């Protein structure tokens, strides 16, 4: 083999930069495999970045799906250890409202206990004292160990750790062909979505971890996976109404979970089957907004008078059981497919189904299978070793500035790499989220940031109440200073603002409409950005 061939050959290629792919790349790398992770857009672009940010206790599944409940609580406890800087330990309530059957509560608690989930029945008055925003009409409450988790941070931490263990990672690299030789997948053809260049990479095992798009990857390899894209829409509110997760104590239904995330809270979800072709450009409909709001107000009535920042939608990769050709029997559990035994196609595995909560377990299962095929016996360590940022640490200094505390919250122990202490680095780009120039530079250098949307996912720039009113423009300036030409930055800025609008448009009334008009006054009226772009829309497949 020549040197360039060595560089093109891996033990494992992982397709998909969501949490499952990132976790799988980490696990494979920790077992000593030579790993390449490829993602067609940015990390957490798909379902990973479009959910509640809920760290389930498993209670939601306790009655209907004992296995999932057990997996959830186990992973919940694991993530508290290994991903401390991504988790906020809020606890959750399952409330019973007058229209619900209070009899369900006893079954619920019993099933939770059987699954190993701490479920404590509390007095409704105590529930109101614990969580003042909860619907005061509640007639029952159970406290469970739900929590909130930042999926962007979690995914990035997994990628960083994979890299620390020798993995390579390519964003904006799309798989355009699966190479098959004598009944075996030997590699993939990639296209760089920034410049269109194509290249081929080889591996003994290729792992399909592309979420709902995994069905298209499988199709490329000539095998069929029956997937059912289920669109789930959610709404983000402008401040944190609740401090505990609030669920309805009944069989899972639409819009019955309210999760506090950072400075906001999120209600969701709806569930609608959609065609796979629509998954790249999902819009939240007025009907969905109506349902989410109506149901959300039953959990916390003050949502009715709280500004909605934006709406967004993700797609669950639901998989039909293989033994059910009709596709009616849907599994929400983890689905690991060995296409060698299933379809006679060696060197190709699919990991799908499951939930963000169980990503580590999914990664472990598929990595075990890959290791078996590669003859590697090293055991999984991902449940024991903390992710970068979550190592044992001294608590943050009380003298930290707002922006330093915010950065510490986002990057955990990796915050040491953010330059500060001088006027240049300390200048604030985003006042809502406390993002400094130093943090932006750190993200550009270390966290695979190529555009403002990437930057938002790494630093929360533009995620605050103003939705990028001024910070996006400042950040574009900082990024331009460093490596891009101005035209590219302006296109990027215009794309970013359109992406922000896409989430605001379905909820454009009240303060959100007023804010949208102010943003338009600044970006179009004052800056004239609408007259300055070169159309580049496709790259912005985004929320």
């Amino acid at each position: 083999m020549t040197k360039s061939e060595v560089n093109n050959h891996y033990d494992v290629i992982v397709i998909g930069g969501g949490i499952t792919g990132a976790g799988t790349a980490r696990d494979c790398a920790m077992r000593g495999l030579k790993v390449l992770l490829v993602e067609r857009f940015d990390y957490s672009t798909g379902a990973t970045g479009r959910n509640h940010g809920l760290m389930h206790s498993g209670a939601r599944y306790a009655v209907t799906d004992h296995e999932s409940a057990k997996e959830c609580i186990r992973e919940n406890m694991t993530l508290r250890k290994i991903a401390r800087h991504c988790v906020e330990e809020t606890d959750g309530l399952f409330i019973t409202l007058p229209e619900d059957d209070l009899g369900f509560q006893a079954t619920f608690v019993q099933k939770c206990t059987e699954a190993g989930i701490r479920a404590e029945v509390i007095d409704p008055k105590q529930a109101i004292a614990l969580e003042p925003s909860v619907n005061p009409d509640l007639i029952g409450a159970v406290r469970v160990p739900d929590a909130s988790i930042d999926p962007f941070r979690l995914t990035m931490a997994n990628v960083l750790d994979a890299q620390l263990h020798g993995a390579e990672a390519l964003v904006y690299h799309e798989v355009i062909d699966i190479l098959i030789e004598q009944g075996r997948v030997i590699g993939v053809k990639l296209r760089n979505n920034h410049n269109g260049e194509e290249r081929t990479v080889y591996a003994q095992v290729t792992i399909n971890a592309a979420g709902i798009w995994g069905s298209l990857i499988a199709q490329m390899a000539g095998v069929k996976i029956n997937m059912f894209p289920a669109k789930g829409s959610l709404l983000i509110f402008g401040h944190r109404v609740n401090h505990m997760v609030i669920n309805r104590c009944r069989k899972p239904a639409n819009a019955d979970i309210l999760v506090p995330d950072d400075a906001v809270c999120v209600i969701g979800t709806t569930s609608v089957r959609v065609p796979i072709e629509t998954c790249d450009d999902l819009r939240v409909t007025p009907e969905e907004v109506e349902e989410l709001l109506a149901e959300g107000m039953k959990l916390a009535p003050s949502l009715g008078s709280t500004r909605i920042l934006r709406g967004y939608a993700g797609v669950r990769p639901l998989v039909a059981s293989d033994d059910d050709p009709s596709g009616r029997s849907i599994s929400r559990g983890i689905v690991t497919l060995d296409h060698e035994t299933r379809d006679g196609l060696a060197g190709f595995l699919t990991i799908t189904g499951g939930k963000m909560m169980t990503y580590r377990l999914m990664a472990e299962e598929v990595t075990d299978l890959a290791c078996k095929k590669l003859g590697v016996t090293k055991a999984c360590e991902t449940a024991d070793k903390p992710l970068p940022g979550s190592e044992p640490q001294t608590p943050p200094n009380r003298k930290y500035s707002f922006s330093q505390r915010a950065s510490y919250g986002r990057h955990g122990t990796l915050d040491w790499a953010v330059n500060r202490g001088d006027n240049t680095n300390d200048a604030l780009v985003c006042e809502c989220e406390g993002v400094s120039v130093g943090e932006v530079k750190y993200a550009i250098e270390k966290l695979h940031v190529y555009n403002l949307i990437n930057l938002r996912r790494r630093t929360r720039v533009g995620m605050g109440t103003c939705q990028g009113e001024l910070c996006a423009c400042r950040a574009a300036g900082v990024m331009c200073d460093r490596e891009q030409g101005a035209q590219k930055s302006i296109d990027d800025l215009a794309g970013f603002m359109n992406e922000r609008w896409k989430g605001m448009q379905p909820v454009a009334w009240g303060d959100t409409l007023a804010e949208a008009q102010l943003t338009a006054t600044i970006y179009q009226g004052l800056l004239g950005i609408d007259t300055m772009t070169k159309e580049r829309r496709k790259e912005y497949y985004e929320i």
Partner: protein
Amino acid sequence: MKFDAIIMGGGLTGLTAGIALAQAGRDVAVVSNGQSTLHFNGGTLDLLGCDEAGNAVRNPLNAIDALSDNHPYKKVGDVKALAEKAQRLLDGAGIATEGNAEKNHWRLTPIGGMKPAWLSLKGMATIDDPDHLPWKSVAVVNIVNYLDFLSPFVAEALRERGVQVDVKEFTTPELDEARKSPSEMRATNIAKVVERQDLTQTVADAINYCLDKEYDMVLLPAVLGISSGERGDQLLQLIDTPAAFVATLPPSVPGVRMQTLLRKRFQQLGGTFIVGDQVTGGRFEGDKLKCVTTAKLEGSVLEAENFVLATGSFMSRGLVADYNHIYEPALGVDVDDNGLNRANWAALEVTDPQPYMETGVRTDEHLRCSKDGTTIANLYAAGSILSGHNGIKRVDASGVDMITALQVANNILNS
């Protein structure tokens, strides 16, 4: 309290109407919540910058004829005369401007865009023809660590048009006061530091020092002169080569200056400026508004012969969209919502014309409001609260503000 006229809203529209009425000897009160969209202004005013097909307009007066019939300009008499009056009014307030209503010029935006403009504040960089820039060599000079002026963007826009551009930056130790808190490097804070410490000469020296050669034009962020235009004029004179200002991200120093000077002028003319308050309701009798209540004047009311509603659009809370409908919150006057429902207030793409922006308060041919279908004889509306125009797409927002305000003042004086 009783006045000849009460104006609700203390931004460009309210103060223009207030000054015009006060100049005519009327006893006027302006009720302002303290906010003004002038804080987002780029140091220019626009009359009509873009026609309904989206093309830039060279001669705004000629292009007004082609506007649709519900545009507010169709309810004013002689736009040319009012535009001249507006410029004189600004001049009288100490706001010197360049430009006229028969020929738009162009302004440079903080990111290097070029937009048509009617009047530019003296000292702002202007261009007659964006295809033929008047400069061969330009230095774009920014303050070190000032993030709200995108000098590389401005430079690239000029280079694309064949100009030789250098990007420079300067600072002085005294500006560190504005850096004490990382969020204080904003235009208005810098302006205050320069004024407080009288740093104009120091800043000029620092700029001259960073210029190592001659340029046809030196472009600077507009961060000087928050209370008057003098300091900016002084600075430009102290710089060795011709120099001009380009607007920054908000808060805009030239915008805040306009707001300050207009308010000062209004008060000099004897006007009463009630700040930090807003109108919460009114008592209607027949086809007349008798008085209004405000949030802070508990128990007492403001009475007047005539009233002007100049509380702005959604962003100023002059209009409100709730879950089901669009309404005017202060007095509950009738609104043209163009038959839209919530699902189509907003268009899918951010740069699409947004239907909600065309909604607003319904007025008759004299710019009088109606309530429950009855025209109110002494209640007028002016500025961006009016229905029938999209100030962003037509580039006519500040023109509509001033021209309709002056027309309303005329209507009141003639009534």
